[in-house]
């Protein structure tokens, strides 16, 4: 799901279908986790946890990209 967002694949809640970059806000995370996790009693911290992992992935990527320049 993080890779799909990274590749710019839109979801049904994405406002711009042709954007190159997907910002994983709470709505995007919830939609993209639909079908991956049961939603009947969704634990509130799932969304912040995914946001944190997505941001960590971005942080580790950016220094690498800087180094390549």
């Amino acid at each position, binding site marked *: *799901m993080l890779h799909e967002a990274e590749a710019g*694949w*839109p*979801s*049904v809640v994405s406002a711009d*279908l042709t954007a190159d970059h997907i910002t994983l806000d709470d709505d995007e995370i919830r939609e*993209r986790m639909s079908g991956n996790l049961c939603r009947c009693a969704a634990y509130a911290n799932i969304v912040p946890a995914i946001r944190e992992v997505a941001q960590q992935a971005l942080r580790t990527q950016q220094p690498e990209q800087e180094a390549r320049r």
Partner: protein
Amino acid sequence: MNPFRYERASDAASAVTLLAGAPNGVFLAGGTNLVDHMKLGVRQPDLLVDITRLPYDRIESLPGGGIRIGAMVRNSDLAADRTIRAHYPLLAQALLAGASGQLRNLATTGGNLLQRTRCVYFQDISKPCNKRVPGSGCSAREGYHRELAILGTSEACIATHPSDMAVAMIALDAIVRVLGPQGERTIPLVDFYRLPGDEPQRDTVLSHGELITAVDLPALPFATRSHYRKVRDRASYAFALVSVAAALDVADGVVRDVRIALGGVAPVPWRATKAEAVLRGKPATEALFRQAADAELAGAQPLPGNAFKVPLARSTLVRTLLDLTEERNRS
């Protein structure tokens, strides 16, 4: 457990030949609907012809404009395709509104068109259903029919077609390419589906053994401004109560051209030709949009449990057209 044979087709001609010799056989693609039906006992094929290795997994531009979508292209790949996203956004949105990521990864373009209704009685083999067992009766008419059809129904059947993708495609004048024992033929998608009449068991005009190879979308430049709006009981992973696929071409405040289809309201993806006729050549106003929606829904025959769909379809259609008009005004 019902025993069945399994054959993996290496080419299209042998797939068609294999099935032609097996009256109770079926093609197997993504299996997201068929395999469920086999588990439930809704279908008991004696032969599965696996067509997933056939070379129909490409999305190609057509020489005269338009696009050819191979029947084996997965729903997720079609939704992510850059050309589809840019030129036919209503189709990308319809695909993304359907099922879940895992199902979209498996489900194919051809299989999506051939989905069966999710009417609870069709899927419950302990209950009568004219679509599953012709002549057994319809349990839904007097029973639970909240999700079922208000347009195009018959005494025998009030099922709805479940596809989101097909609603967008029918608005886009898609053409289905088919290979059968008699050779190739093309069928406009709008003629591909059958209304139930007194033969609700036949969803489409396909004959036994005919294989969908591709879906062609003609060029439609104004479809860059198009939208698929789906109304459902929860925000994700649910079938449509009502959906609208629309593309709108407005110039100087006048509707030059328009394509509209409705989902969740009929036994087929419903092309809204009456609404389109009201709109063409008239000033694009909310009053006109309401008039168009009323024209399309005038023939609705709701039942007590699904009468809410008439005002819901009207509002959803008007809102979708307003959004498309306002989008144009902003840019």
